[in-house]
């Protein structure tokens, strides 16, 4: 194998390791994969480094050495430079509202049983959009008991006097993402599309297709480290 191949591997490994160390990988895969990405990155770096060093050491005697016919298929490895360039230079963002309107949404009924009632405390209860949806579906939201809740997601579009709050569920990576959507009503103003917000409020029954939250407070926040549920 040759120096260029080694260099490409070295770059692939470096990008993987960098993704893990900066936490950027959370935009693309679920956080639990971090250690595996790091291990893979280190392994690829070692292989690339050894290949590169050997190729450079033997560069002058390749005539004698390289009699084999190569697989004829290795140049396709150059294509790895495409994701490397994308990740080193621009790092594509987390999935946004574009996919919400296009993909099938998560069916909140899957796996939802009878849920324990919330205890109304002084502080609003933070929960995932999925839990909110499941509680809304379970006995028409009886388990909320009027308690205040707090949801975090991005704005997926405005409606009259309301906006849709969304967050993706992912099982493995962003390719399998499916959005959960909640309609937020009563916020004073509608934040810009794709802006991340934390919404405090109470469940409002009778929302129809989408579960509804009557907001008392909407705060814009930076995108969280783990943008998916």
């Amino acid at each position, binding site marked *: 194998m040759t120096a260029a191949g080694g260099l490409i591997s070295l770059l692939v490994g470096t990008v993987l390791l960098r993704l893990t160390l900066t936490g950027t990988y959370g935009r693309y895969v679920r956080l639990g994969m971090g250690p595996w990405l790091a291990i893979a990155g280190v392994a690829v770096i070692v292989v690339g480094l050894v290949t590169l060093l050997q190729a450079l050491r033997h560069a002058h005697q*390749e005539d004698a050495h390289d009699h084999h016919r190569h697989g004829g298929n290795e140049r396709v490895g150059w294509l790895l430079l495409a994701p490397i360039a994308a990740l080193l230079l621009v790092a594509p963002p987390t999935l946004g509202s574009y996919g919400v309107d296009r993909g099938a949404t998560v069916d909140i009924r899957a796996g939802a049983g009878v849920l324990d009632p919330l205890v109304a405390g002084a502080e609003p209860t933070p929960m995932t959009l999925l839990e909110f949806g499941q509680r809304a579906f379970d006995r028409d939201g009886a388990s909320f008991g009027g308690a205040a809740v707090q949801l975090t997601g991005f704005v997926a579009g405005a409606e009259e006097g309301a906006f849709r709050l969304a967050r993706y569920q992912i099982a493995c990576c962003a390719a399998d993402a499916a959005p959960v959507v909640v309609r937020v009503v009563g916020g004073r103003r509608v934040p810009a599309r794709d802006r991340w917000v934390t919404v405090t409020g109470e469940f409002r029954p009778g929302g129809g297709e989408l579960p509804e939250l009557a907001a008392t407070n909407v705060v814009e926040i930076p995108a969280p480290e783990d943008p998916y549920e």
Partner: protein
Amino acid sequence: MSGGRNGYMLRRMVVKGVNGATSVGRAQSEGLPGLPGVAAVAVVVVAAAVLRPVLERLLDRPAVAHWATVFVAIAVQAMPFLVLGVTISAAVAALVPAGFLPRVLPRRPALAVPVAAAAGAALPGCECGSVPIAGRLVARGALPGAALAFLLSAPAINPVVLTATAVAFPGRPEVVVARLLASLLAATVVGLIWVRTGRDELLARARRRREEDGPRLAVLVATAQRDLLQAGGFLVVGAATAATLQTVVPRSVLDAVAGAGPLAFLAMAGLAVVLAICSEADAFVAASLTQFSLSARLAFMVVGPMVDVKLVALQAGTFGRAFALRFAPLTLAVALASSAVVGWWLL
């Protein structure tokens, strides 16, 4: 003989670079070049850096950003599994003596194929890892039909995937059983069909694979490096295809046919091919598509780990394009039939 085989864009540039720098001639021009190649990699990276503002402007468009995120996500997600598969493949190349596999594996296809399909349960991971391993098995003289049965079953019936399926379908153990049986059945049938009517000469690329020689550690590293670049390159092709289809084809198109029986069945299989979801995650997606019948969702989980755009690209890279063009339709048809039968029986 390999003159016009690969039409890849970079070929011209690479070959020119080599010829311009050294006189090693044709044997050398078959692979990635030496020092001129390093320069070429540097040129590509620098060019990308110069174009960075253009890339950033492109990412301001939601559709492009969506495409880029899905593309990168598939590539990143697959890397650990690809590294695992490549490592095992390289370990076989370095540590298992040539001629050992044909000696110890069962010779009779009627036994070898089902055994290989069942052996797939021992490889935890998703489909990206099993392709280089199956390629290595073929290179090492295993019965091709058996290696292909392993290739198909491993991503679908290993404990990690079955556990994920059980978690995704709580209280429905029959879904896990149906997935196991339908996948085993499909893998075995495809393997046996290949033994009877398959054209093994199509596997020439996998057979021809260069075996490194030298100290074991050197063989391990050299094999891993070559497999990684090759499989990685095709993974990029597959990820780009899947991302494009996900961005261009709205999923609601498929949801529209959810109701109708056989059509819904085909739609779910089509969805599995197009989405190219990792087999460890597809059960969760299947669980969420409640508008489809359980049988249709079974087809999604049986077809996905065996045929999807990313996987076909990987198979084309490892075994050759002519092989992939025949193998993918055969597998799709058998996987559909198998899930129909098992779904009708169990679900």
